[in-house]
């Protein structure tokens, strides 16, 4: 039984799909990377899992969580707001884009961690609370001094660590990290990614890592799902997707990365921009930007298993030589 199963998730804005049918499953302890350009529905998918979408976005489809130790599955799509309050952070927590703004400026870090624990375990005693906060801070490489600091007194990397400590406060089974390293310099990026990988090993966390940076995902994740215009266009084991992409979009994304030690030259970007959800092209949504587009692409390609363990939404898959 998967930890999280998403079936046919759609999110509409004014009748137009922002997320147009996403199916995903995450096993306990697995790290899934969600890749794609800005505006392709990665964050919207994450917020739908937490049922935190703004009121203008209407979700449909089913999202089922099977938290370890729970007697029955949690049907997130059917939960009320009150019901979700019990699930949020307890089973699924979120590391936000930009920790600076996600921490309340008027409270110390330890008070904010205490808040999270108290919300779900109101009967925790003061001594235990203090011990757990100290433990969490130590886990992410911070000290008690940082716990007594206000967010503005910490550096960007420390704040992101504090945010991760906060995400672990209620020992969730699944952590969703939405661009956790985007605001950091490369050194801090590497440290935060190492931290996430280590925590996953030590605590057996499942992780959904959202990033536009394929290199970041390749390093941290077991499996990769590439999103384009609200759909998953390719999924498979991270290493395999990297080695032999099965969708032109993934191929082009990888080509747009300059290779270290490789041929010197200008990176090869994808021309154009993802389609506006209010004016999406017919058939394959990547068609207008795809160098391989043909007449068949006017029909919408299904996300099908093209190789063992590999799925691609391209009529021409499997691709062997590009």
């Amino acid at each position: 039984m998967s930890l999280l199963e998403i079936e046919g998730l759609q999110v509409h804005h004014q009748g137009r799909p922002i997320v147009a049918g996403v199916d995903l499953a995450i096993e306990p302890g697995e790290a899934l990377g969600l890749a794609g350009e800005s505006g392709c529905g990665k964050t919207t998918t994450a917020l739908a899992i937490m049922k935190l979408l703004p009121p203008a976005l209407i979700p449909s489809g089913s999202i089922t969580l099977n938290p370890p130790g729970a007697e029955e599955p949690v049907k997130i799509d059917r939960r009320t707001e009150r019901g979700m309050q019990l699930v949020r952070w307890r089973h699924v927590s979120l590391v936000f884009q930009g920790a600076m703004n996600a921490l309340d400026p008027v409270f110390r870090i330890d008070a904010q961690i205490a808040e999270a624990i108290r919300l779900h375990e109101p009967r925790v005693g003061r001594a235990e609370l203090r011990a757990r906060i100290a433990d969490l801070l130590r886990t992410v490489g911070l000290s008690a001094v940082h716990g007594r600091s206000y967010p503005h007194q910490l550096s960007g990397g420390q704040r992101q660590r504090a945010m991760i400590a906060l995400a672990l406060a209620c020992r969730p089974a699944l952590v969703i990290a939405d661009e956790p390293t985007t605001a950091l310099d490369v050194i801090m990026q590497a440290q935060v990614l190492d931290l996430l990988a280590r925590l996953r090993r030590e605590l057996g966390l499942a992780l959904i890592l959202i990033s536009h940076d394929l290199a970041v995902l390749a390093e941290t994740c077991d499996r990769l799902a590439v999103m384009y215009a609200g759909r998953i266009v390719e999924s498979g084991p991270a290493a395999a997707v990297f080695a032999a992409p099965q969708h032109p979009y993934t191929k082009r994304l990888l080509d747009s990365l300059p290779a270290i030690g490789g041929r010197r030259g200008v990176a090869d970007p994808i021309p154009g921009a993802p389609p506006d959800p209010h004016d999406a092209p017919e058939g394959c949504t990547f068609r207008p930007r795809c160098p391989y587009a043909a007449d068949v692409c006017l029909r919408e390609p299904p996300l099908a298993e093209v190789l063992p363990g590999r799925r691609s939404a391209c009529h021409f898959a499997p691709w062997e030589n590009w």
Partner: protein
Amino acid sequence: MNRVLSSKRGRFALAVVTLFVFVAVFGALLAPQDPEASSTEVLEGPSGSHLLGTTEVGADVFSQLLVGARVSIVVGFSAAVISAVLGAAVGLTGGYFGGITDKLIDAFENWFLVIPQLPLMVVLARLLNPSLGVLIFVIGITSWAGTGRIVRSQVLTLKERAFVERARALGASDWHIIRRHILPNALPLIFANTVLIVAVAILAEASLSFLGLGDPTSISWGRMLEDGFSAGAPSAGAWWYMVPPGLCITVLVFAIGLLGYVFEQQLNPRLQEAVE
């Protein structure tokens, strides 16, 4: 508080307000004579035995002035607290929940904003029996709308901040988010605004008392003005009867206004340079 003390204006305002609060607390003990005691020395000018002269019934004006500070301060602060609590509650509810709740509250608020405050207070005070409590209630209930409006606009920006979304992701309820995240972040603004309301409330108390709608059993500066006016002090040239309470009201309101202004400058980073 340290930053308020670092500016000259802040120090001055705080010193004046502290002095008046001190008088309000200990005025009755400091008063050299019984402020209600009548004597045969009617409407006499300042002298050794009566520092600020006497009233039309021969009571000591200086003693009345000291005792009267209490009503002004008590009414001013209590009414401001009522106004702040009401305004904050209304502003938080409307700003946070938005939609139809906000629209209804907004309409109600507009209504309170456009009704001239003094006539409304006069009517309310007339309807109810004049007493200190009624005075506080009437002033409080007529002055919250501005605070409500300011708090609402602050809440509108606060609720879009990422930490509010994070709090919701924590599994926090609306009530928890308002109490633990929105309110603490809006508190400095509410505080600065309340200080300014104190000044307005003190003026309102003086106005109502001057119109004879104050508490008839307690001495206040407004009542002194009214007594002096009805006793014909201005035409009799008895300046010592009406100038001191008028001056006290002016200085206190000025100092509180200044204090609120300094607070506002400290809390609004865009105004901070102007303080230097």
